């Protein structure tokens, strides 16, 4: 009976002693909460972004630890440990959320920067395009100007060619005209020569070594006088006309007689008759510088003085026409 009383008492004492000497039995849920909390505390993202939530979890964990160290009921410790554990998880998720939100906000800024970059590039692209267009249009303009210059040059060279052609045509025309002129001149010269000959022939001129000679016969003078008859004046007039047409030609007037009478008389008569013709020519407008004259008396007969016909032939005045240079060979 005594033993029976002692045993419970011993057990109670043992239980009290055990309670004092050792910590309460491990609580696995509390261990998990502690472990989670220390991991979260080591995570700078959680400590910086979810400081309030982590502090809340710490307070709850303190309560759980306190309950556990006071050896309160397992249900209470489990409960407090569970709440603390969930609150650590909340702190972790909060940190995750805030980090993601920060990332979104940074990304928004980045997106704006990218958009700005895009617009800047578009603007640059547009500017480059505009510059390229401008350069192209400038090049086109230059090409157009070049083309115009070339066509102008072509036109100028065409014009020059035309002018040259015209000049050549003109030169050819001139050459033709010159040729015509030359031919005409030649023809005219020939004409003149023929005309001269014809006129002189009409005056019954004869061709001699000294030139054409027109002879005024004795019948054209009054007998033994120097005065020209009207027929002689007519002949002299024809000669004067001739010399008017050929101003480069001069005349030599020579008077002759027959052998009848004295020499001095004959010389005088031949002088006067030559002078008479000269005076007539001067009267008809011929320049005195073109006329030379002299009498030869009975010298240089052209026929015999023995017959009347011969003597008549010897009584004469000869007019020698010079060449084109105005020269007459002396007798």
């Amino acid at each position, binding site marked *: 009976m005594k033993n029976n009383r002692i045993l419970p008492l011993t057990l109670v004492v043992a239980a009290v002693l055990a309670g004092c000497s050792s910590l309460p039995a491990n609580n696995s849920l509390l261990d998990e909460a502690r472990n989670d909390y220390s991991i979260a505390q080591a995570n700078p993202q959680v400590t910086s972004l979810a400081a309030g939530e982590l502090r809340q979890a710490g307070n709850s964990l303190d309560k759980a630890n306190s309950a556990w160290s006071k050896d309160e009921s397992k249900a209470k410790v489990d*409960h407090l440990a569970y709440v603390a554990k969930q609150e650590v*998880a*909340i702190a972790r*998720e909060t940190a995750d959320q805030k980090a993601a939100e920060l990332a979104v906000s940074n*990304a928004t800024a980045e*997106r704006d920067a*990218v958009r700005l970059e*895009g617009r800047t590039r578009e603007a640059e692209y547009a500017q480059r395009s505009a510059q390229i267009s401008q350069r192209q249009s400038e090049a086109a303009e230059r090409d157009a100007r070049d083309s115009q210059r070339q066509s102008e040059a072509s036109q100028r060279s065409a014009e020059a060619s035309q002018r040259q052609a015209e000049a050549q045509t003109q030169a050819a025309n001139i050459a033709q005209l010159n040729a015509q002129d030359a031919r005409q001149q030649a023809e005219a010269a020939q004409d003149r020569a023929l005309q001269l000959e014809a006129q002189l022939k009409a005056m019954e001129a004869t061709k001699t070594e000294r030139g054409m000679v027109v002879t005024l016969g004795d019948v054209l003078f009054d007998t033994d006088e120097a005065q020209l008859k009207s027929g002689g004046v007519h002949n002299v007039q024809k000669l004067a006309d001739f010399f008017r047409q050929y101003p480069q030609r001069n005349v030599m007037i020579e008077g002759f007689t027959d052998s009848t009478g004295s020499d001095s008389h004959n010389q005088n008569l031949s002088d006067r008759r030559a002078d008479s013709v000269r005076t007539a020519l001067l009267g008809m407008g011929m320049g005195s510088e073109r006329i030379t004259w002299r009498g030869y008396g009975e010298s240089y007969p052209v026929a015999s003085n023995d017959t009347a016909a011969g003597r008549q032939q010897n009584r004469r005045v000869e007019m020698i026409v010079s060449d084109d240079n105005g020269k007459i060979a002396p007798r």
Partner: protein
Amino acid sequence: MSSHQWYRAAGAIGIAAVVMAGCASVPKPTEQIAVSNSAITNASRAGGAEFAPVEMRSAQDKMARAHQAMAKEDYEDARRLAEEAQADAMLAEKKAESAKARKAAVVMGDDIRVLREEINRKSK
């Protein structure tokens, strides 16, 4: 009434006081129940069922048990269950929010990448 009887009466009153005091120290956790219900509603609205199904189920389960404990007038158990349900619901809400935020960050990163590619193609 003998003195012995007085002792008995005093003992009975003392016990009754202790019992009443015990009742007064575990009040009805009406406020906590309301807070926990609100937390579950918020978590559900935030998409907790989709992003944190385990926590959501746990919160709802604990809330149901809390209501049972309330019915049994086991207020201490009801409070603990309601508090745990609140913690679960808050965690579910946070998980949903952080998952959405991470998703948004990923989408934004993709957007930026696409935008950059487009710009690079355009400007070439």
